[in-house]
């Protein structure tokens, strides 16, 4: 019964929408109405795209900030490790062998600075090798 009651209003809604379109055409003319609708649609789509980009940018900024926090905490931990090792009588040379100092913003930057650009082979390169073998 409830479903029938709701469906009764559907033609009314469609009529209202048609009346709205007709009144737009009456006020602005066919081209004007089309341009008005296109303008509103452009504004809404543009706003949607802007908000999506803002969201992506904010998300990336949060991720970067968290990464910086991790690096800061790693640096703090490193300094405390050095202090602890010195307390146990380690020399500067011994400490330098095991603890590498540095102020980095993220893991990849630290890795490149401390280990050079040695990258492990990626899975995609492995699959390429496999396919080349098959070809041979």
């Amino acid at each position, binding site marked *: 019964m409830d479903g029938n009651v709701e469906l009764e209003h559907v033609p009314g809604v*469609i009529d209202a929408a048609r009346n709205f379109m007709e009144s737009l055409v009456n006020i602005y003319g066919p081209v004007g109405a089309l341009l008005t609708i296109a303008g509103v*649609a452009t504004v*809404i789509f543009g706003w949607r795209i*802007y*908000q999506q980009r*803002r969201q992506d940018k*904010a998300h990336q900024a*949060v991720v970067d900030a968290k990464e910086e926090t991790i690096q800061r*905490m790693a640096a703090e931990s490193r300094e405390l490790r050095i202090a602890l090792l010195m307390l146990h009588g380690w020399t500067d040379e011994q400490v330098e062998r095991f603890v590498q100092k540095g102020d980095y913003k993220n893991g990849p930057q630290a890795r490149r600075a401390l280990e050079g650009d040695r990258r492990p082979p990626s899975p995609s390169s492995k699959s390429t090798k496999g396919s080349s073998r098959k070809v041979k």
Partner: protein
Amino acid sequence: MGNGYLAICLLLILIAFAVLALRSRMVARRYEAELRCERTRAHFGATRHQLFMLGVNGAVDMDAPAFATLFFLHTFVMRRNDQYPKISGVLLGQFGRDDERRTVDKSFHAPPLKPVLIDTAAGIDMLIRDHSRLFRFLHALESRSGIVSVLAKILAPKIQRHEARRHPEVVQLQEARREVLSLYHHNNTPAPAHC
């Protein structure tokens, strides 16, 4: 009827996009708030570590009230940097004008403590800025050059009065910042409004 269906479809699509845009805006604002919290937390964390290392290196007496006060203050803010009334209450308790301990205790005036005090003041400044959208707007204007910064100077007192009425805790935070800065300057005269 055909026109009606077309209009309904168009309106539904527009409404759907508007709803999606509103949702993105809401999520973006939540991320931005989280970012501000994270930056403030990181600032106080770095300041606390700086203070701790000064203590470890013997530059600052770790038994002095200044060390304990600043250390626990930084920890307190790091744990709840979004709960402004609590923070402002604690800051005012530690650095308020009616706090006799601060005027008696000279350990706050140790020269190695100066960078920690100035960083603490900068951290409180971040808290104030993060608390209010108008203050963030004012800060954005101040960071520009030319006529925009002049506009910021004109707007600053009005925004200050408006926000003081809306958020009393901001006034307390500003007072605490002035007190921290006055400790930095080694006397009890009030520091300038902007550090």
